[in-house]
């Protein structure tokens, strides 16, 4: 190991990185854009549900129910007099859901025999279910207001959203975005840079110098590490100050976790490119094995415990789930030693594993290059 050579290689990498606009875009612009998209655009909070209420007659309770919905920030209410209009409205996407209030509402209510129909557009089932739940909630509270509470048994249901009091999706989206950005910089960018050197024939000339494989791998990682951490810091700052996400755990621990995840992704990227030696293949493979799983199998977008068991098992081999678990906990709950140690431990082990294979696969030989006589 020779530090002078590592420095020379790292300086070269830095210059190339700075002169290549794509790296800058991936490192700096991408995290910002992703955070804005996920923070503002892709939030799963329910607002402005277009609700059609079909009521054939006017009654005081009916009017109270309707005004409850109208007052709520969650609903845009349209009143309709017949079922047919409501169906058309749903078909034309003028309504997401329909609430049918029965005739003789007043009487049914007094008899405690009230059947109201809630129909939702369930072409996206999870959105449909959420709409249904919101509508039910408002409906129940509207009706309860009319009941003489003293005549009811003393049952109260109260709910609290722990760690995410406002049920704000930015809270869990933002840690997820950090995972994706770091997977991208760590794995894809590193893999592409290395494969490019093989493709352009730089590697062949580099091999015939006193440089060792380990020196090359270290130099490759230094700059992308810095770039990745800049991305993470940007994401943390935006999370805290733009989206108001609480950071309850320690910043140092977050950065330590980021470091381990980034090292893991970079070593995996180096492994991919050392094996494929092609930019095209590296790009596709890192997309499939790092980027997509970070999205889909990490628990960032879809809750792992609600996945089918075989898929749940698969998630264990992708590092994303450990990092998401670590991030969401450290962000929203605080420093939980068991969670930190478990997740970071697994990721550290994976890093060493990949790094070692990458080193073996990079033996300063061209044997696996195939024929080119």
């Amino acid at each position, binding site marked *: 190991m020779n530090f002078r050579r590592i420095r020379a290689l790292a300086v070269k990498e830095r210059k190339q990185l700075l002169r290549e606009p794509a790296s800058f875009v991936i490192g700096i612009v991408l995290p910002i854009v992703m955070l804005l998209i996920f923070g503002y655009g892709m939030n799963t909070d329910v607002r402005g549900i277009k609700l059609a209420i079909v009521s054939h007659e006017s009654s005081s309770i009916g009017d109270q129910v309707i005004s409850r919905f109208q007052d709520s920030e969650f609903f845009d209410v349209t009143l309709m007099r017949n079922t047919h209009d409501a169906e058309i409205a749903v078909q034309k996407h003028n309504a997401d859901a329909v609430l049918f209030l029965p005739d003789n509402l007043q009487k049914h209510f007094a008899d405690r025999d009230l059947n109201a129909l809630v129909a939702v557009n369930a072409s996206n089932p999870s959105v449909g279910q959420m709409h249904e739940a919101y509508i039910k909630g408002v409906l129940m509270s509207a009706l309860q207001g009319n009941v003489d509470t003293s005549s009811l048994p003393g049952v109260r249901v109260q709910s609290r959203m722990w760690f995410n009091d406002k049920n704000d999706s930015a809270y869990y989206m933002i840690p997820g975005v950090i995972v994706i950005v770091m997977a991208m910089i760590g794995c894809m960018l590193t893999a592409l840079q290395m494969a490019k050197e093989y493709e352009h024939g730089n590697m062949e000339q580099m091999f015939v110098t*006193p440089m060792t494989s380990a020196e090359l791998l270290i130099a490759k990682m230094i700059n992308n590490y810095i770039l990745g951490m800049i991305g993470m810091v940007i994401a943390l700052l935006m999370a805290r100050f733009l989206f108001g996400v609480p950071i309850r755990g320690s910043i140092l621990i977050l950065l330590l976790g980021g470091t381990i995840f980034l090292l893991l992704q970079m070593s995996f990227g180096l492994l991919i490119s050392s094996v494929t030696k092609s930019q095209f293949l590296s790009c596709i493979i890192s997309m499939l094995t790092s980027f997509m799983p970070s999205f889909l199998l990490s628990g960032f977008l879809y809750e792992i415990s609600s996945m089918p068991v075989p898929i749940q098992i698969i998630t264990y081999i992708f590092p994303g789930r450990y990092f998401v678990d670590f991030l969401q906990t450290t962000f929203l709950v605080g420093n939980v030693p068991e969670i930190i140690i478990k997740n970071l431990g697994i990721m550290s082990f994976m890093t060493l594993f990949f790094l070692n294979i990458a080193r073996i696969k990079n033996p300063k030989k061209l044997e696996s290059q195939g024929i080119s*006589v």
Partner: protein
Amino acid sequence: MDGIILCKDIKKDFNLGKETVHALNGISLSINKGRIVGLLGPDGAGKTTLLRILAGLLIPDEGSASVLGYDCVRNAESIQSVIGYMPQKFGLYENLTLHENMKLYAELHQIPLQNQKSRFDELLEMMNLSRFPNRRAGKLSGGMKQKLALACALISDPDILLLDEPTVGVDIISRRELFGILRKIVDKRKSTVFVSTSYMDEADYCDEIVVLYQGQIIANGAKDSLIEKAKTVKSNPTLDEGFQMLIAGAIPLPLKRKVPLSPEAEVVVKATNLVKRFGTFTAVDHTNFEVRRGEVFGLLGANGAGKTTTFRMMCGLDAVTSGSVEICGLNLHTASGKARQKIGFVAQKFSLYADMTVKENLEFFGAAYGLSRAKRKERIHWAIHEFALENYQNAPTGDLPLGIKQRLSMACALLHEPEILFLDEATSGADPLTRYDFWRRILDLADKGVAVIITTHFMDEADYCDHMVIMQDGKTVASGSVTEIRRQGTPKGAPLNDITEAFVHIIQKKETAS
């Protein structure tokens, strides 16, 4: 044997799918200190494999090799720290400057900081690159890149230089310059240079040659060893003829047109005031050409002279900035579909589908040109017969030898009976036998009335051209028949230069004038 590079019975196979290719088949040689040794041979002869084994990048299957007494397998690291190696693909970083590229290699070789500056200056001076140390490597011309790559390989002042085809795709002037530099180094430092090339004529610059063909050494020793055998049948044979004699056992007769170009032949390609600008840089500056039916038209020039750009505009691959190209009276840019139907194109890089068989490639290109089923059958039959592909019909294209690939490329380009055939450095890297065969077919096509437009770096191929154009800095600097060009390229009163000297003279005269 006491050579500083030694090879003993080296064998190296590569597995290509189910087939095994014997890249090197029993190579033994010894190279002495202080010599420039040329490793000559066509593409696929095994040159790169041999150099990579010597550089410790590949492990031979059998036999042993050593450099400066270090074993190429066990002591690869030691070899790599003492030799200079320049692979065929540039090992340069295109977005680093000349200076930064050199600095990187200097640091990797741990050249003491205080010696670096003088070393850089010395090398840049030697390479004649001192004018722009801060230009990025990507912005250099082909010849300059090769010189910079050489400078990087020379950083550590190595005793042995292994160079893999440093002159491929480089014009004759840069080639001479490069070999001039090598000669200086060898004279001054008594270093040893082992340099591979597919241009037989570069043997002239070497003290000794090793000629490889299909993984075996067919000639080794002084450069005359290549032509010794040919001398028995001909006085003053060329190096190409020597090679032909060694491989085929005979020197083929010189090629001649059977039907000379008629002076009244109609013009089929007309380029008027062609201009191509890339940003502020004018690559092609108001060029005019006329190519007639049955004419062999050669486009020559130094690297960066604009010949490739001109060529690409003439066959419709690049848009013109201004000016026009007419193919058989059709404007290539307004009636491009119809005009392109009249063009056949063979690219420099093999561009057929490697994983399809010969027959499938022909079928595909026939269909792509819109030939009817019956017509396609007829033309494919013709092509297979004409290009002697009968034995290869069902072979995957990727596995074919270079010469056969080239024949197939030509066959595909001719399926739709084009009136004009464009060939972009189609003979680059081919051995003399393949080139001879190739030109026999070209002249045959021209006899039948096809206009052939060709670019080449082989100066001897100029002899086959009816008309030649030499380009420099985007302009035509000489135009005419070979004899006319030779006259233009000969100083007043001197005996008539051969075509190579004439070319060099024309280019250099313009360079000093500007």
